[in-house]
C-alpha cells in the first residue's frame, strides 16, 4: 500500500453552535484524482480551509508528506507543494492574466522575466494564451476559473485542492476543462476536487468521498458511491433510496 500523500485524522471544527466539520478522517493517495462531493452546506469548503491552513481545526490533525501540517499557514504549506483554489474566484483584478499567473510561478522562480515566461507556458495549458495581456477583471467567469487554476498550477503543486473549479461554466467549457484536469494528474500532480458537476466526477475521479452535514458518510469508486443508499438519502432526503428502489421494481 503506497504512502498516502495527505492524511486527515479526526478533523473537526465548530462555529458558534454549528459543527461544520465533524471527525473527518481520510487519505489521499499520490498521483490520484479524488473527488469530494456532498450536498450544499456539507462543509466541503470548510474542510478545504482546514486542510490548507486557512482555518485551525478544533480537533484532529492533517499530515502531508508524512509531516504534521495541522494549522500550518497557507503560504508555508504552499511552499511544500499544497495549493488550493477558491470557490468564489479571487483574481488579482488590477493585474493582467500573465501577471496573475506569474505570482504563482514566483513561488519557485525569483527572476521576474522567467516567471512571466513560465506564466505564458501555464496559460497555454488552460487555453488562456490569447488573453495574456487582458486585466483579470475583464475575463468571463470561465476565464477566471481557468486563471484560478493556472495560477495554482504555476506554483508547481504536488497536491492541488480544487474548489468547484467547474462551477459556473457552460457545458462546452466543462468539456474543455475535463481533459485539462486529467492532464494535470497525468503530469504527476495529485488532485482533490470539490465538485457538483456529476459527469466530471464520474469521468475524472478514481475515488470519491461524500461529505454530508460535516461528516464523511461514504467513500469508494464513483459508481459505488452513487448507488450507495446513504448518499442518495443525503442528497434527496430521507426514504428516497427506498422509494427509488420500489419505483424501479415496478
Amino acid at each position, binding site marked *: 500500500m503506497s504512502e498516502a500523500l495527505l492524511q486527515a485524522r479526526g478533523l473537526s471544527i465548530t*462555529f458558534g453552535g*454549528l459543527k*461544520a466539520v465533524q471527525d473527518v478522517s481520510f487519505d489521499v493517495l499520490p498521483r490520484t484524482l479524488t473527488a469530494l462531493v456532498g450536498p450544499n452546506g456539507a462543509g466541503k*469548503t*470548510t474542510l*478545504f*480551509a482546514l486542510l*490548507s491552513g*486557512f*482555518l*485551525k481545526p478544533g480537533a484532529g490533525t492533517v499530515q502531508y508528506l508524512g509531516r504534521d501540517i495541522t494549522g500550518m*499557514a*497557507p*503560504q508555508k504549506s*504552499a*511552499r511544500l507543494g499544497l*495549493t*488550493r*483554489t*477558491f*470557490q*468564489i474566484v*479571487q*483574481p*488579482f*483584478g*488590477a*493585474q493582467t492574466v500573465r*501577471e496573475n499567473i*506569474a*505570482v*504563482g510561478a*514566483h*513561488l519557485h522562480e*525569483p*527572476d*521576474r522575466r522567467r*516567471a512571466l515566461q513560465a506564466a505564458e507556458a501555464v496559460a497555454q495549458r488552460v487555453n488562456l494564451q490569447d488573453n495574456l495581456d487582458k486585466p483579470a477583471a475583464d475575463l468571463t467567469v470561465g476565464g477566471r476559473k481557468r486563471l484560478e487554476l493556472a*495560477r*495554482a498550477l*504555476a*506554483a508547481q503543486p504536488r497536491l492541488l485542492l480544487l474548489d468547484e473549479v467547474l462551477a459556473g461554466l457552460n457545458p462546452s467549457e466543462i468539456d474543455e476543462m475535463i481533459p485539462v484536469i486529467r492532464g494535470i494528474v497525468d503530469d504527476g500532480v495529485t488532485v482533490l476536487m470539490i465538485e457538483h458537476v456529476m459527469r466530471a466526477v464520474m469521468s475524472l475521479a478514481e475515488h470519491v468521498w461524500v461529505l454530508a452535514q460535516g461528516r464523511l458518510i461514504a467513500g469508494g469508486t464513483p459508481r459505488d458511491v452513487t448507488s450507495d443508499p446513504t448518499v442518495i438519502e443525503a442528497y434527496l432526503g430521507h426514504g428516497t433510496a427506498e422509494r427509488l428502489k420500489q419505483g424501479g421494481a415496478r
Partner: protein
Amino acid sequence: MRDVRSILLFGVLVAGAAALLQSGVALTFIMMSLYAVLLAQSWNILGGYGGQLSFGHALFFGVGAYAQAIAQLTWGWNPWLALPFAIAVGVAVGLIVGALTFRSGLRGSYFALVTLAFAEVFRIVAVSVPFTGGGVGLMVPLHASVANLQFGSRRGYVFLLLGFVLAALVFTAWLRHSRFGAYLQAVRDNENAARAIGVDPVRIKLGAIAWSAAFMAAAGACYVQMFQYIDSGIAFGSTISVEALVGVIVGGAGTLWGPVLGAAVLYGLGEATRNMFGEVPGISMVIYGAVLVLIVMFMPRGLTGAGLSVRRMLKGAQPQSAQQPPAQQQDDRKEEARV
C-alpha cells in the same frame, strides 16, 4: 527598460533646469515640488502598491526630521552623517508599527485609523518632552556650507531632493519588475489568494512599510536642512499626512508617474491659490480637500487614469480573524449592526 529611460530623462531635465535657471522663485518652485513629490512617492509605496492606506504617514516624516535635528544639536553630528541615521530611525519605527499592526491583521479603515492614532501619540509626546524641544521645537543653526548640508541657494536643495526622488522612482520601477513588487500587489489585490500560492503577507507588508518609511524619513530630514526648524505640529501633524496621500490619489495610486504628476499639480494649485488669496492659513488645504473629494467622486483612477481605482485598495473594511466560516471570509461586510 522603458522605465529606467524615462526616469533618466526626467532626472536630466530637472537637473538641467536647476542648473540653468537663475530665478529664486523658479528654483523654490522646483524645490518645493520635488519635496511634495517625494512625500507622495513614499506614500505610494505602501498605499498605492501595497494597498495599505496610511492616514498618519507624517509619523515617519516626523521621526526622520527629529532624528536629523537631534543628532546635530544634541550629539554634534555632521548632518551628512545624521541623514542615514534619520532614515534608519524611520525604518525602525516603520517596522515596529508594521509588526504591531500587520501581525494583528489590521487592514483597510482600521489600519488607516491606527496610523492616525500613532501619529497623534507621537505628536503629543513630542510637544511634551524636553529633548524634542517641547512646544518650542528645535532650531538648527543656520550655517550654509555643503559640508554642513545647508546650501546658500535653493539649487543645492533641489539636487538633494532630486537625488531622493530619483531613488524613489528607481525603487518604484523595481517594484513593477520584481518578485517583491509582484507579491506586494498580490497582497493588495487579494490577500487570501496570495497566501494560497505561497506569499507571506506580513513579511511583504513589512518590507513595504520599511521602504515607505525610509523615503518619508529622508523627506523629514531634508525638511530640517531646508528650513532649519522642526516642531511637533509640523513633524507629526495632519498637513504632511494629507499632502502625502492626496498627491497620490490625484495622480493615480499604484503607478510610477502618478505621484509625481499628482504632487506637482497639487503643489502648483496650492501656489496659485496662495498667489490669488495671499497667505491665508488653511486656504490651500481647502483646495487639497476639495480636490480629493472631487477626484474620488469623478476620477477615482486619478489623473493618469491608469492609477488604481481607490476602491480596489480599500478591500477588507474590518480586521481579519482566522476563525471564521469561509463563506463569511469572502464577504467584506462582516458585522451586524446592534442598533
